[in-house]
């Protein structure tokens, strides 16, 4: 009996942590349990979930994608620069006509897709480890973004004055449910289907779990890796566009270090850094844990620097507990 409880607790450690966190905060301040708070936490989590789902793809093959955060920043700046109000005094492109909303969004997504392809190409064609390949891309993307951001007449001024239809995407909603949450849910469902129901996803798990086995079973490993990175890049870009829309602006520092948050959320959510293991709900819960920490600890008035220390402890201890599932019993 005792053993069964212990097994159960290890199996669902992350869910237990999430629930304990919520209970703990609620004891301190019962007003935490409210629809508004939950909505805020979910809104905060939406873009993070989209980024983490991209990062999870790379973790699945035993790599880490460091370019995620900077691609979020690039997407925020590019989309914002193309979607400012016509009468705003400091426009990025003063003479830019009013484009239909989907054109700037598509352009931005294509840029992220392209950088993702670049990552995938370098990793699959030249066998550069993902950590290094994406380290390079991260630096390049930041450089490119900063050059773009510094173009006259903008000269590195924060981009603001976004079009109503665009910021509506980040702040509006339907039936009281914010669009960002709806988009995150849709993307989560799509990613769940991709990973669990398509041969692409199943092959990724196989490649991550045992690459040689995948090769001799006739899986085109290189092609899968190429598309995996492209998909990841696309997801980061979507998140970046939503970040710009939600916050009503962008600078070249948007998304800084988001890749580390995303990787932390994945490992806390049960993804193995050696690859081949992880679930989509795990990613969602991993992200939620961090959002609850961020929001909840601020809610009960804990110093943000202390929050960092708590966050660090949670990352390490959650993984220490979770990894027990995979350790061979001796």
């Amino acid at each position: 009996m005792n053993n069964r409880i212990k097994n159960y607790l290890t199996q669902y450690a992350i869910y237990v942590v999430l629930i304990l966190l919520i209970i703990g905060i609620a004891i301190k301040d019962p007003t935490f349990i409210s629809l508004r708070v939950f909505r805020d936490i979910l809104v905060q989590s939406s873009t993070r979930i989209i980024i983490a789902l991209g990062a999870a793809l790379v973790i699945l093959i035993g790599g880490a994608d460091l370019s995620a955060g900077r691609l979020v920043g690039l997407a925020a700046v590019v989309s914002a620069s193309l979607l400012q109000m016509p009468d705003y005094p400091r426009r990025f492109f003063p003479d830019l006509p009013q484009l239909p909303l989907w054109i700037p969004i598509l352009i931005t997504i294509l840029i992220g897709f392209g950088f993702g392809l670049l990552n995938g190409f370098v990793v699959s064609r030249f066998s550069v480890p993902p950590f290094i390949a994406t380290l390079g891309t991260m630096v390049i993307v930041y450089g490119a973004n900063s050059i773009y951001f510094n173009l006259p007449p903008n000269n590195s001024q924060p981009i603001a004055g976004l079009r109503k239809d665009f910021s509506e995407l980040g702040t509006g909603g339907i039936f009281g449910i914010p669009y960002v949450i709806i988009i995150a849910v849709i993307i989560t469902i799509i990613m769940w289907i991709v990973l669990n129901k398509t041969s692409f996803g199943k092959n990724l798990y196989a490649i991550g779990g045992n690459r040689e086995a995948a090769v001799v079973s006739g899986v085109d490993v290189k092609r899968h890796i190429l598309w995996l990175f492209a998909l990841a890049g696309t997801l980061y870009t979507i998140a970046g566009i939503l970040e710009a829309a939600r916050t009503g602006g962008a600078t070249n520092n948007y998304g800084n270090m988001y890749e580390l948050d995303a990787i932390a959320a994945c490992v806390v959510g049960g993804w193995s850094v050696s690859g081949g293991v992880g679930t989509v709900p795990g990613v969602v819960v991993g992200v939620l844990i961090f959002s609850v920490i961020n929001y909840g600890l601020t809610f009960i008035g804990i110093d943000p620097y202390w929050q960092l220390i708590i966050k660090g402890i949670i990352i390490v201890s959650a993984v220490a507990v979770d990894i027990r599932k995979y350790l061979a019993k001796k």
Partner: protein
Amino acid sequence: MTNNEFILEMNNISKEFPGVKALDNVTLKVRAGTVHAIMGENGAGKSTLMKCLFGIYEPDSGEIILNGKKISIKNSKEALDYGISMIHQELHPVRYRNVMENIWLGRFPMKKYSLFKLVDEKKMYQDTEELLAGLKIDIKPTELVKNLSASKIQYIEIAKAISYNAKIIIMDEPTSSLTENEVTHLFDLIRTLKKEGVSIIYISHKIDEIFEIADEVTIMRDGKVVGTWDTKELTEDKIISKMVGREMTNRFPIRNSKPGEVILKVENLTSPLPKSFKNVSFELRKGEILGIGGLVGSQRTELVEALFGLRSIASGRIFIKGKEVIIRSPIDAKKHGMALLTEERRSTGIFPDLNILENTTIANIKKYVNHFLLLNDRERKDDTKQMVNALKVKTPSLKTLIKDLSGGNQQKVLLARWLLTSPEILILDEPTRGIDVGAKYEIYTIMNELTMQGKSIIMISSEMPELLGMADRIMVMCEGYLSGILDKEEATEEKIMRLASKYTN
């Protein structure tokens, strides 16, 4: 053999790796519907040849003719498309995925009518069930592979190879993790496949298996083909001498040791895991070789790993030289004069990218730390040189990376590593696995000499002749229990086999 046509011809295949000519003008012809065995020592080129056939390597020269048509195979997918499938010797499955996904990996059945390209899990489940039922394998398609035993995983590999509807199936050491009954089952399967016209290329070190199942045998040595024979023309001695290239009169050195007082005593050792070793008691004497026999899954390795502090113990006591000791880690075990040569040389033995010097001195490194907390390199080199000479390790220099040595020489370096710690009890887990006949004899000689010096050896071995030839006493395990201990004089293969399956229904 009704059909005398060659379904497959590999003509004049050569393949060179930096510094090694792995295949030198090799020709192999396989008839349809036969079992064609390939034998040879390690490094003879058997696996390399098969990897050329399966598209993992590309031959430098030569041609492959399948059904009378010349083909070129660039990767495994093409090989599979040509109807050639392979059971790999050292390939582990995707452990965190289920059985059916492992079997249909690379060719999942897809749903016909849906918006996206989705995998048809229902069909995959049914196909797997059908496939496994046809092979009389009782495994659930949705079981995670990591929960399966080694022999079940081997079955999955076999089922997978068959599921390609291949005309040629390459089996590289398919019985390495199967029990006697399972081997019989596999051979039945092979016979059924033969009747359906499938050709099997069968690689094995086990000579008795070859006599049982193979129609023809091709023997390779040093990357060349020695010849191809009808199995009926061959005898065990003929095969060995053709493999080694010389007559082997003695496969084991003569042992005339006189075991002394008890050095190690184990009482009722029991594992905390339910399916592992239970109530094992035995004694080891000074200068003795105690063999441990048993089938895969008999928990022999688990037992010695527990002795060495790698696994935990629920109950039981260990005495060394009459004094009770508690061993919680290999560090404790080393302090008590024990050494363990693990079963998996590649994964838990060698440091492949380090050289001979580092590999030899790593277990004893503290001895070489001088007053400035630095390593005394001269002493390390002297000790290593002495060991290399004493054990006759064939290496160009001490700076050679261990991965560039042959299996036998790697094993000698590992022995050297542990001998430098001056152990009194050496535990050797399958010390000659994957080592060719010549090097085996040298390892046996070293073991012999060590016991002459008063060292004691526990040797796990799955090879009956090795147990009978080297051990002073043989203890046999079955399903975690000690099923009996036989003296050298009374031991026979039949007695060992009977003890090894004592508790299996």
